[in-house]
């Protein structure tokens, strides 16, 4: 039997009003979506605690995507600005840890940008396939 190609696990945090809609649109538009994706829906990107991101890595994610509405479009006024401030700390921390920076990504995606969402996930997946499994992945998790 041929060895099955390794499929990375990508966790995407999506806000209910924009990027989750973007993911939905991507699905409805039948854009090719890699099976690597695991979506976690939150009401707003402002709800994404950096702790969730680290926990995703420690549980076995090969990459984590932080997504939300475009700046200015957050349905809770400024949740995505808060997410952005936290993201900068996260990004610096990932760098200092020595984890490959590509494993953490931020993107603002509206509900109508299905193609953008699909391309984003595909690009990250391709990059992570090159990098291989995350060094933080626990033993015994694929």
């Amino acid at each position, binding site marked *: 039997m041929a060895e099955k190609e390794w499929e990375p696990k990508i966790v995407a945090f999506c806000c209910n009003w924009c990027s989750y809609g973007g993911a939905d649109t991507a699905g409805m538009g039948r854009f090719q979506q890699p099976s690597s994706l695991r979506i976690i829906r939150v009401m707003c990107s402002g709800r994404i*605690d*950096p*702790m969730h991101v*680290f*926990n995703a890595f*420690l549980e076995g994610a090969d990459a984590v995507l932080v997504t939300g509405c475009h700046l200015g479009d957050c349905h809770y006024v*400024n949740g995505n*600005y*808060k997410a952005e*401030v*936290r993201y900068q*700390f*996260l990004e*610096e*921390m990932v760098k*200092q*840890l*020595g*984890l490959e920076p590509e494993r953490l990504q931020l993107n603002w995606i509206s509900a109508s940008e299905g193609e953008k969402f699909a391309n984003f996930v595909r690009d990250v997946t391709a990059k992570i396939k090159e990098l291989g499994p995350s*060094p*933080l*992945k*626990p*033993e*015994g998790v694929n």
Partner: protein
Amino acid sequence: MVEVGDRLLGYATDPNVRSKGASGGLVTAVLAAALEKGLVEGVVILKRIDEYEAVPVITDDVQEVLSSGGSMHAVPVNLAKYVVGKKVAMPGKPCDVRGVIEQAKRNSVDLSNTYIVGLNCGGSMHPVLTKEMLIKMYEIDPEDVVGEEIEKGKLIFKTKSGEEKSISIDKLEEEGYGRRESCRYCDVKIPVSADLACGNWGVIGELAGNATFCEVMNEKGKLLLDTAIEAGYVEVRPADEKSISIREKVNSAMLKLGDEWKEKVFDEIPDKDRLKYYIDQFADCIDCGACKEVCPVCSCGPDSKCTMFHSLADNYKMSMYHMVRLLHLSDSCIGCGQCADVCPVDIPVTTIFRRFANPAQKNRNYMPGMDLKRPPFLEVMLK
């Protein structure tokens, strides 16, 4: 009446307090007067057990305050958390003061109720290592030590039998003794965010050793000092230009030395080795939580986000407890060294935390514990 911005030389009027004090007893007298005159309900003092051990207590007994003078260089405890929720006055090294300011930003200390008499600080020593150093380098039995002093870059110990031995601090630090590592690169030596900033730098001539250089940093500092002067507890006079410039010079020299240490301690670990380094270091962690408990800038209670992940049973590659803390402290860690001091398995916690905090704070041109107007960053700075 003194004014904000005044730089003064002063001392306790009571000769016993003056001679027991590290450099004139002004700090002790100011704290005692604040209590005596009702400015505060208690004073944080260090209750001495021996040369290497003291416990912070809050007392409402003026006599007890008056007898608490003297600097304990081998007691690197941090006092910031002792003032939470109380109306007290406290002495404080820059790291104590900065801890209090960070607590105030998180609304756990009410600064209008807290008076801080800051002490300049060139560094403190770990008590256990100090005893080891006495045996190995000084060839003195730690139990025989009756006093210790720093003079001209030398650390001097006096024994029961009247003997004195001195060794240069540089030499001690080469051998891994002397000041704690975090103190060597600590970047605040004069506690300008306290109400008064006191020390012996700049005290010269006949006053050397028996007067304190004191800068009035704000209105509360003015009130503290005015109260002590009116009560007859202290006498002050303006410091002359020479004193002022010596204090500045010593401070700059110390900061420069600190920067050199910083370079040495934080040599870059190559990108590809870093993750392994952190994983290996934290692999020894027994999740005791002591490093969080003592951290003077953390204001979370016993049930907090990081401690939720105290588990030796997870199969995580790296401690989630530490990942949460590394992030939470990257904006606010003041490098006080407490976490490394208490770690039972000798993880260099402070050095690791500073590796994350140094760039985060530098990128934001931010120094925690200095300026009340800048909020903690993770509370989110929105333009």
